[in-house]
Every structure is written in structure tokens, then in C-alpha cells.
């Protein structure tokens, strides 16, 4: 607690003398639109030296676009950027680098076989005669840098041997001392960090901001850490800047309100739909009791009946993906607790086994884990679902497959030429529909959707969600996980909130309220004891 007290004092100190801070980076009237649709409009932001400035918003609020523009990897449609007093009409990543604007991206491709020293200096080795690299020199320099972030570790250690958390910190250190960032942009750097490392990172950020006057732009989904670390927080909603607030002037509930736009938003679901909800006690889809998985989720119990769509809302890293992957048989079977499919207890050892028993899983990584890129639409549609498409000799009845693809095409409004064309000819939304169609074609009792509407256009999203609500729900038990609250509110009969690996709250369709749901998946309002119980790192990997 001591450090926090000290830190808060320092924060106050900064706010007291705002005149001592100069604007280092201004974003003026910046907007971005794609084929006429604005994703960002009229953004005005000033970043001061020595401040930690948070940018927050829901998925699709425009954070990523703004960050890309500020870092030069995306060109704004309108507006200008002023960097250290210089007006730039066109910023490129290399120009940004020159100006010492450094981004630590959300996902980094670490070269596992490089040592810490090498990965710190790669791309900028100290120049030596004939281009030789003096390993001893860079190791010495690396040691100094590691000391600054308080790491006692040999710089010869391979990056691949470090846990993700340490690699993240080293990335930050690289940006600070190898690239000498004056403006450091951290894009969801904390998403992968546990509590201990977050504390460490925050202390470091505070220090370089106050003592060295660097500007830190901090992007995160998590309100609590925003409140803890930032001097000012800018909130984006639907591509517009809602407010830039000094952190000490607002509290976390107000911040959540800024993000979601208050209580009224999206609560227009007619209450009459309530009688649509089928009594789940009678029709057993699946149920889990006291399910735990090391490092992911703990003591999870719930039930989903046939004829019901249940949402699982959480932040990335809260454990919802792992829960679905465990139930689908994708994760190694190391969980404890009970899992009943229908009336029988089942142990999920492989996807093939689970599908045979009537449970299917849709991955959230469509490109990597669902698609066969080189194969035809028909082959992608089939997956392993050959049972109903082979004749007595074991030969495939291609006409029947085509017939069912056409049926799916009609149901899900898929735009495609012949089923023989390779799937890569389709748009993201249509690919997703084919994969969903595959799952539906298995004739399953239980379907687990992980981010069913991610990375698809608005039209496809509408079609998929409506089809799940109106058709799939009839004879299937559906569990739908997402970090997009609005999607879940559209489709689900109930929404369970998963926070740090535990289900902390459940909302019924009649009580859906975006603001409340959003707040609780952030962990706001759950009692402090429960929160502390879970701070042992569960749910964060």
C-alpha cells in the first residue's frame, strides 16, 4: 500500500502544476472513414510531457484506428498531427520512430531463439568496425537496462525461456531505453500481465513519466488499472471523443458510464420476450459443476438448457475462452469438477469425441483454427461431418453436400459462387457463416460459440445473431462467449459474467442493462473480499 500512497502523491504533484507541462503531441480534428463510413470523427487530443494519458473505449470505438494514426501506420482522412511543434500532414512509422514515438503493440512476434540482449538491440546494434557486433558490449548495456526494470537475469537468456509477462516488460524497456521513446504508446500491454507485474510496470511508467518527462499513452480495456495509473483519461465511443477527464475528478462508475453512454443504451428489449424463455430445468442441455482448470478458471458451475442461449461475458483473459476450449475438448483434459452432457457425465478428451457426443465448438481464431484455406467451400463446410454424406460403399455423395450448402446459403444469406470455389474467395463474414453452417450441419445438441461475430461485417453479424436467436435456439443449448456486451444482449436469455476465472454474476434477459453488465465484467461493484480472493492470478496468463 505504501507505494500506491507515494504514487498518488506524485500524481497530485503533477496535476498541481499543469503549466510546467508542454504539449508534445497534438491530434487536431482527426477523422478516418472507410468507403464513406466514419470510424473516427473530429478527434482533438493534446498529450503533455510527463503525463500518463489513458485511452479507453469498447471494442470498435476507434481506439486501434486512433493508435494506428498516431503511430503512422494508418493515414487519417481528415485533420493533422502536430509533433513537438511540427505540423505533419503525413506520418509514417519510420518518421514516427525518428520523432521517438514508439509503439509497443498488442501482439509481438518475439524471436524465441534470440537472447534478451539481442532482442533489445536488434534493429539497432551499436555500430562497430566492419559491422561486427560486440556481444560483450551489448550484454553490458542490456544489464544496465535490465537493472532499471529491476530484473536480476543473465542477458544471454533466450527470450523463449522467459514467461510472457517478462517479455512484455522487456519490450517496454526496449522502447524506453533502446529506442529512447519520448512518446510511448502501450497498446493493451497489461492484458497479459498478472498483478505483480502490473505493479512493476506501473511503478516504472510513473517513474519515467515524472523523472524523465516522457509521455505515455496507455490503452487498456480495464477500468481499474486506468484509474490507478493514468493522469488523464480520454474516452472514445462510436468513433467520437466523448471526454478527456482528469482522473482525480471522476470515479470508476462515471468512467464506465462515459464508455457505455449511460444506462438507457440498448435496454430496449421488449419484456414480452420473457415468456419465450423455456424452463431449463426440464430440458437438459449440459451442466457443469465446480469446474476448475489450472491457471484459467475456478469453481465454475452453471447449466444451459436446450432452447436457451446463455451468454458468457468477460474481458479477454478472464478465462471464458479457456472454459469453452476445455468443454469443447480442445485443451488437454486437466480440469477438475463435473461436466454433464444431457444426463451423462462426460470427460472432454478430444473435439472428435465431443462432436460425436453432440457438442460442438466454434473457435474465435477463424483464420488459424477453423478454415482450410486452400480447400473448397464444400470441403470447409464438411469438416468431419461425413456420416450423413456417404453411401454404403463409403463413397461421398457430393450432390447431397451441395444441396445442404445451398440450404445453409439460404438460411444464413451467404454470398458465394459455386461450392467448388476455394474458400479464400469469400469475405470474412461469409467465411464465418460457412464455419457456423458446418457446426449447425452436425446436428448437435450443444453449441459453444466463442466470439461468433468477431471480424465480420455488420450485415453478417446481424444475420448470424438473428439466426442463433430465432433458429438455433429452438433445439439446441447454446453457450455464447464474447467481450462484446451488445452482441450478447441481442441474443441471450441470460448473461453470466466471468471475472478473473470465476462467474460472479448472472443477468436475466429482463434485467439486461449494458452499463451494469459492462461494469460487472470490469469487476466494478463486486465486493472487495471476493476480488481479493481472486487476485492470486487466476484467469490471467
Amino acid at each position: 500500500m505504501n507505494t500506491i500512497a507515494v504514487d498518488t502523491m506524485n500524481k497530485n504533484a503533477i496535476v498541481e502544476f499543469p503549466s510546467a507541462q508542454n504539449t508534445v503531441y497534438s491530434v487536431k480534428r482527426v477523422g478516418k472513414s472507410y468507403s464513406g463510413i466514419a470510424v473516427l470523427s473530429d478527434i482533438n487530443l493534446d498529450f503533455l510531457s510527463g503525463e500518463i494519458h489513458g485511452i479507453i473505449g469498447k471494442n470498435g470505438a476507434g481506439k486501434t484506428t486512433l493508435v494506428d494514426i498516431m503511430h503512422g501506420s494508418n493515414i487519417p482522412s481528415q485533420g493533422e498531427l502536430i509533433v513537438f511543434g511540427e505540423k505533419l500532414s503525413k506520418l509514417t512509422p519510420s518518421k514516427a520512430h525518428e520523432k521517438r514515438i514508439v509503439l509497443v503493440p498488442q501482439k509481438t512476434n518475439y524471436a524465441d531463439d534470440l537472447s534478451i540482449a539481442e532482442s533489445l538491440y536488434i534493429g539497432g546494434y551499436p555500430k562497430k568496425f566492419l559491422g561486427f557486433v560486440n556481444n560483450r558490449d551489448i550484454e553490458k548495456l542490456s544489464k544496465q537496462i535490465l537493472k532499471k526494470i529491476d530484473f536480476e537475469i543473465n542477458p544471454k537468456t533466450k527470450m523463449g525461456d522467459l514467461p510472457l509477462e517478462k517479455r512484455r516488460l522487456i519490450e517496454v524497456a526496449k522502447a524506453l531505453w533502446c529506442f529512447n521513446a519520448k512518446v510511448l504508446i502501450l497498446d493493451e500491454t497489461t492484458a497479459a500481465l498478472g498483478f505483480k507485474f502490473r505493479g512493476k510496470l506501473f511503478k516504472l511508467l510513473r517513474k519515467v513519466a515524472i523523472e524523465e518527462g516522457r509521455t505515455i499513452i496507455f490503452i487498456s480495456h480495464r477500468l481499474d488499472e486506468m484509474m490507478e495509473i493514468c493522469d488523464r483519461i480520454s474516452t472514445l465511443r462510436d468513433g467520437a471523443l466523448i471526454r478527456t477527464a482528469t482522473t482525480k475528478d471522476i470515479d470508476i462508475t462515471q468512467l464506465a458510464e462515459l464508455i457505455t453512454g449511460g444506462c438507457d443504451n440498448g435496454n430496449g428489449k421488449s419484456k414480452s420476450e420473457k415468456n419465450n424463455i423455456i424452463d431449463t430445468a426440464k430440458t437438459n442441455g449440459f451442466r457443469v459443476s465446480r469446474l476448475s482448470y489450472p491457471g484459467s478458471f475456478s469453481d465454475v458451475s452453471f447449466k444451459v438448457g436446450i432452447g436457451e442461449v446463455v451468454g458468457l461475458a468477460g474481458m479477454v483473459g478472464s478465462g471464458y475462452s479457456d472454459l469453452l476450449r476445455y468443454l469443447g475438448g480442445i485443451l488437454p483434459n486437466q480440469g477438475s469438477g463435473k461436466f454433464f452432457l444431457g444426463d451423462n457425465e462426460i470427460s472432454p478428451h478430444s473435439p472428435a469425441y465431443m462432436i460425436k457426443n453432440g457438442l460442438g465448438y466454434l473457435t474465435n481464431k477463424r483464420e488459424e483454427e477453423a478454415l482450410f484455406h486452400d480447400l473448397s467451400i464444400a470441403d470447409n463446410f464438411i469438416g468431419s461431418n461425413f456420416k450423413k454424406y456417404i453411401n454404403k460403399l463409403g463413397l461421398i455423395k457430393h450432390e447431397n453436400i451441395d444441396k445442404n450448402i445451398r440450404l445453409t446459403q439460404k438460411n444464413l444469406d451467404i454470398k458465394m459462387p459455386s461450392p467448388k470455389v476455394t474458400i479464400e474467395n469469400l469475405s470474412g463474414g461469409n467465411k464465418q457463416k460457412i464455419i457456423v453452417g458446418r457446426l449447425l450441419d452436425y446436428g448437435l445438441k450443444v453449441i459453444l460459440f466463442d466470439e461468433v461475430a468477431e471480424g465480420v461485417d455488420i450485415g453478417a453479424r446481424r444475420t448470424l445473431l438473428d439466426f442463433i436467436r430465432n433458429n438455433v435456439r429452438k433445439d439446441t443449448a447454446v453457450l455464447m462467449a464474447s467481450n462484446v456486451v451488445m452482441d450478447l444482449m441481442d441474443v441471450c436469455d441470460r448473461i453470466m459474467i466471468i471475472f478473473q476465472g470465476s462467474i460472479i454474476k448472472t443477468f436475466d434477459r429482463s434485467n439486461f442493462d449494458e452499463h451494469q453488465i459492462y461494469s460487472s465484467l470490469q469487476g466494478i461493484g463486486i465486493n472487495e473480499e471476493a476480488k481479493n480472493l481472486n487476485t492470486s492470478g487466476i484467469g490471467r496468463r
Partner: protein
Amino acid sequence: MVFKGSHVKLILDNFIWILVLLFLVIASVAVNGFFSVDNFINMSFHSASLSMMILGMAFCLLSKQMDLSVESTYVIAPAIGILISTRLFPGIPDNFAVFFALIAGGIIGFINGLLVVKLRINSFLATLAMLIVLRGLVEYLLPIGIFEVPTLFGKLGADTFIIGDYAIPYTIFIYFSIFFIANFIIRNTVFGKNVVAVGSNATAAFIAGIKVDSTHIFVFIVSGICAAFGGVLAVGKMGSVMNQLGNGDILFVFAGTVLGGVSLDGGKGKIMNALGGGLLLTIITTILNYSEVSPYLIRAIQGLTLLVAIVLNNIIELFLKSRISE
């Protein structure tokens, strides 16, 4: 629009046959004595045993595995078959050797499969080790070779029937039909579909409920049996099993498969085109034999031709793809 280039795709998909035709036409014009029915029959005949190994490799590559051990299986399987039926069980008809040879090939494939799937050894390394071990074993079993082989070998590998003026070996019909059947299996059976799906994206296949591991094991078994049958044909053709039979052929197996458009990335390629790859290699060798090239240069020229063919393939593919996406 993206879908315009259907005829472009047709060319791309059958590019190997265009190459085969091109080489045949050029050689017929340029090389004296090349153009004759006998020669064409001969080339198809000599392509047989290599093509069988290519077929096995095609299955492996389609599922994104490799099987380097085929060239050793190619000799040890017939050797074991003959040894079993003549030495171990002298009572049974010695033509059973063919059957035992295929079983031996299957078992070798099965072991390869277990090494790759269960012990998670990279298939390149596992089958490389197998290649060396089997070659060593065959040298131990057959200090020089077996010079008397059961009659069935000769029937399959060398006997001919007469149509008009021409003697046509049965082999040609046998291995062409095997390719047709294999092509049919890939397109129309669950196993075939799974092979391609697993090769295209193993994770997606796993999540979609395909049994990835057993598919891979089966692929290695198929590859072993194909190589063993190739060996049977070769032994029949020569009337003997020499312990150096097939030594070094693996490079040509790879060359033929890749020439046939079966991608090393897995999931891409057509079985019938792999047949074309094998034929093209044989055509190139024949051309070199006909023309008065120094025998010491033949290998170098083979390699060079291969390189040119592959580069040509890539260039045309890139060119056509850029035209499609416009």
C-alpha cells in the same frame, strides 16, 4: 471480380501435363529416333516404379508429412517378402512373396507413423533415420542380392501382351489404374478428404473433429505399401533384388512429386498430376540418353532441368494469379 479466371485455373491445375506435352513435342522434333510408339511405351514402363514411390510421397505431402524412407522400403520390402516365402516358410507358394512384401511395406509405414505421431518426431528426421536403418539392414540381409525371384514378380513387372505390332507391359496398366484409384480415394472417400484437410490445417482439422493422428498414421502406411509395390515392379523388371536398388532415388521422388504440383505446404496438389511429374522425369532422362550428352553430365542436366521446370511453374503461377486478382 475474383472468379473470372476459370480457364486460367484450368491451365494452372494441369500445368504439368502442358510441360509433359511440351517436352515430348520438342524432343520428337529435335532428337533423332525419339518419336516412336515403342519409345513412348518404354518411357511409360520405366516410369512405373518411381511413380509408385511418388504416389506414396504425394499422400504424405498432401497431409503435410514427408516420407524419406520410401527408397529403402522399395528394396527391403521385396527382399523380406522373398526371404519369408523361400527361407522362413519354404512350404508355401513362393508367389506369396509379393503379398509379404506389401505387408512389410505397410508395417514400415506404420512404424514411421508411430514415430511421427506418438513420439512427435519431425517426419523428416524420423523417416531419414528409417531410410538409413533400412538400407543398412538390406545390406546385411543381402550381401549382394537375390538373383532368383518368384514368377509373380516377373508377371507384374516385366510381362507383356501384344496389341498389333506392339508389346505392352502389364505394368503400365497396373500403375495407371492404381493412380486412378488413388485419385478417386482422395476425392471421394472420407480418408482422402481427411488427408487433405489435415494437411491444409491440422489445428482446424482437429477442432473440426477429424482424427488427425490416425489419419497421419494411415498416410504413412499407404506410403509404405506404395513404395513396396514400386519395389515389386522394379524387381520384376530386373529379375533380381540388388541391395543397392533405389539408392539415391529419394531425390527424384521428391522432384517428381513437387513437379507434379503437390505442395510442400500440405493440402495442395492432385494425384494425377504427380503421375505427370514422374513421367516428366522419365522423359527428361530418356531425352538425355538419346542425345549424345556425356554420361557424366546427365545428373547435372537432370538437376538443372528440374530447377528450370519448377521456376517456370512458379513464375507462371505468380503471373496468372496476378491476372486473376485484377
